[in-house]
C-alpha cells in the first residue's frame, strides 16, 4: 500500500484548510482600512490603534489575565497533588473517587458546570456569608476547578511514563520522601507542570460560558466582552484583537515546541 496516496494527501490538506482559512481571512481583514468588512479599501493598521484606545476591552483583558494567572496557579498546585497521588500512591481510601472527580470536570458540559457553581456560591453566601457576591474570586475558583482536572491528567501521564527507579534509588540511598519529591521528581516533571499551567491559563482565558454564570458586575472577562460585541456581527476591532491573540499563541506554541525538540536532541546526544 502506497504510503502517500494522493487522494489521502488531498483530503488531509482539505482538513488543514478548513482549520486555517477562516483564521487567515480574519487576520487579513484586520488590516482592512474600511469599516465595512465587505469592502477592501487597502492596508491599514488603524484598527490596532482603535483597539488600544478601547478602555472596555483593555480592562476586560486585564481581568482575564488576572483570573487566568490565579486560577492556573491554584489549578497547577492542586492538579499536581492529584496527579502525583494517582500515579504514585498504590492504594488509598477514595482513590477511585478522586480519580473520577478529577477527570469529570474535563467532560462536563460548560453550561452545567457554570450553573452548578453559581447555585453553590449563592447557597454558600446565604448559609455562611462567603463568598460575598460574584466577582473575580468566584471566577477564579470556577476556572481553577476545571484547570486542576486538566493538570492532573497531564501530570499523571508524565509520572506514569517516568522511570520510577530513579525515585527508588534515592529512597534506597536514604533520602526522605518530601526531599525526593522536591529534589528529584519535581525538577524532572517541571516541563509537564509548565505545560499544565499554560493549559489551565488558556482554558481560563478562553472560557465564556462558565465565566458568564459566575462573574458579577465589574468582573466581565475578555470573552464575555468579545461575545457581547460579536453577537451583533463582525467588527474590525475584534479582528485586530483576535489577530494579536492568535499571534501570541502561535509564537508561544512554536517556541515551546522548538525548546522541547532541542532539549530532546541534547538529551539523546548526551546519552549516546
Amino acid at each position, binding site marked *: 500500500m502506497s504510503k502517500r496516496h494522493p487522494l489521502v494527501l488531498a483530503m488531509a490538506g482539505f482538513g488543514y484548510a478548513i482549520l486555517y482559512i*477562516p483564521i487567515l481571512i480574519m487576520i487579513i*481583514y484586520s488590516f482592512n482600512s474600511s469599516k465595512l468588512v465587505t469592502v477592501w479599501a487597502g492596508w491599514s493598521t488603524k484598527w490596532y490603534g482603535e483597539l488600544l484606545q478601547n478602555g472596555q476591552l483593555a480592562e476586560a483583558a486585564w481581568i482575564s489575565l488576572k483570573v487566568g494567572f490565579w486560577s492556573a496557579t491554584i489549578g497547577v498546585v492542586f492538579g499536581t497533588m492529584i496527579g502525583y*497521588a494517582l500515579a*504514585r*500512591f498504590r492504594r488509598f481510601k477514595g482513590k477511585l473517587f478522586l480519580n473520577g472527580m478529577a477527570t469529570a470536570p474535563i467532560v462536563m458540559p460548560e453550561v452545567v458546570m457554570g450553573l452548578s457553581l453559581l447555585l453553590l456560591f449563592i447557597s454558600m453566601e446565604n448559609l455562611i456569608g462567603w463568598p460575598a457576591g460574584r466577582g473575580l474570586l468566584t471566577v477564579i*475558583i470556577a476556572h481553577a476547578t476545571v484547570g*486542576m482536572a486538566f493538570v492532573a491528567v497531564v501530570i499523571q501521564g508524565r509520572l506514569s511514563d517516568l522511570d520510577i527507579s530513579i525515585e527508588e534509588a534515592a529512597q534506597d540511598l536514604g533520602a526522605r520522601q*518530601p526531599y525526593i519529591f522536591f529534589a528529584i521528581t519535581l525538577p524532572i516533571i517541571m516541563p509537564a507542570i509548565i505545560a499544565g499551567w499554560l493549559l489551565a491559563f488558556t482554558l481560563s482565558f478562553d472560557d465564556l460560558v462558565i465565566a458568564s454564570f459566575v462573574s458579577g458586575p465589574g468582573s466581565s472577562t475578555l*470573552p464575555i466582552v468579545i461575545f457581547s460585541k460579536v453577537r451583533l*456581527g463582525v467588527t474590525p476591532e475584534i479582528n485586530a484583537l483576535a489577530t494579536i491573540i492568535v499571534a501570541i499563541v502561535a509564537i508561544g506554541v512554536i517556541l515551546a515546541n522548538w525548546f522541547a525538540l532541542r532539549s530532546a536532541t541534547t538529551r539523546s546526544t548526551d546519552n549516546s
Partner: protein
Amino acid sequence: MGFGSLKRYLVIIPPMFWLGLFFLIPFFVVLQVSLSDPALTRPPFTAIFTWDGWWPTGFLGDLENYEFLLSDSLYINSYLNSIKIAGIGAFVCLLIGYPIAYVIARADSRMRNTLLLLIILPFWTSSLLRVYALIGMYSPNGFINSSLSWLGIIDQPLQLMQTDFAVYSGIVITYLPLMILPLYAALEKLDDDLTEAASDLGATPLATFWRVTLPLSMSGIVAGYLLVFIPSVGEFVIPALLGGPDQLMIGKTLWTEFFNNRDWPVASSVAMVMLAFLVIPMMFLRNTQGRREA
C-alpha cells in the same frame, strides 16, 4: 513508593476537599433547585425543606419542573436536536480528521512534528475566536458571499449563517483537534508489517484499510468520537453565534431559561436531565481511556 500514610493524606485531602466542595456538592444544589418552584425572591426559587434549627422538618420539593420539561415539546426537541447535531458533527469530524491523522502517523519524524504542531496550534487559540472567524466567512456580506458575487457567480447572497451547515462547521473548527489526537495515537501504534502482510497476501489498498487499519484504530475512533460528541451536546457558543433563532440546542435552551426567563428551577432540571443523558457516553469514554492506558 510514596509517602508515609499520614503525609499521604496531606497530599490527598486538600484537592479532595476542593473538588468535593466545588464540584460534587454543586450537583446536589442543582438537584435541590430543580425540585423547587420559581419565586419572586432573591434567589428566585423556593426552599424545598422546612427547618427547625439544623433539623429538616418537612420536604416541599416536587417533580413539577421535570413534568413541565416532558409536557413542552421545546425541551424534548432541544435534547433530540442536540444529540442529532452532536452525533452528525462528531461524524463529520471523524471523516475530516481520519485522513489527517493517517497522514501525520505515516509521515517521517520531522514532517510529523510540524503537522502535529499545526493541529495543536488552533487548539491553543480561543474557540470563541475561531467560531467568530467563521462568521466572517459565512455572513451575508462575509468572505464567501462577497467573493462569489465579485466573481459574478451569485446575485443574491447565499444563506450560510443560521443554518445546520454553519453549526456543523462550528463543531468542526472547534473540536477537530480533539478528534485527530486520539486517532493519531491509535494509528501511530499501528505496525506497518500488518498492512504490508495484507497487501503481500493480495488485499487491495481499500480492503487493507477496511479490514486491517480501520479495526486496529477503533480505540482512537471511539475516543475521538466521544471527545467531540460529549461537549458538542451541551454546546452554547456555536448555536448562539452560528445557528438560527429556531435552531434548538439544549445548551442554548438552558442559557435562555436561566438568563432571559430567569427560571432557575427549570434551568436546573434541564441541567439534571442533560447530565443523565451524558452519563452513559462519559462512562464509556472513561473505559476506553482506561483500557488504552493499561
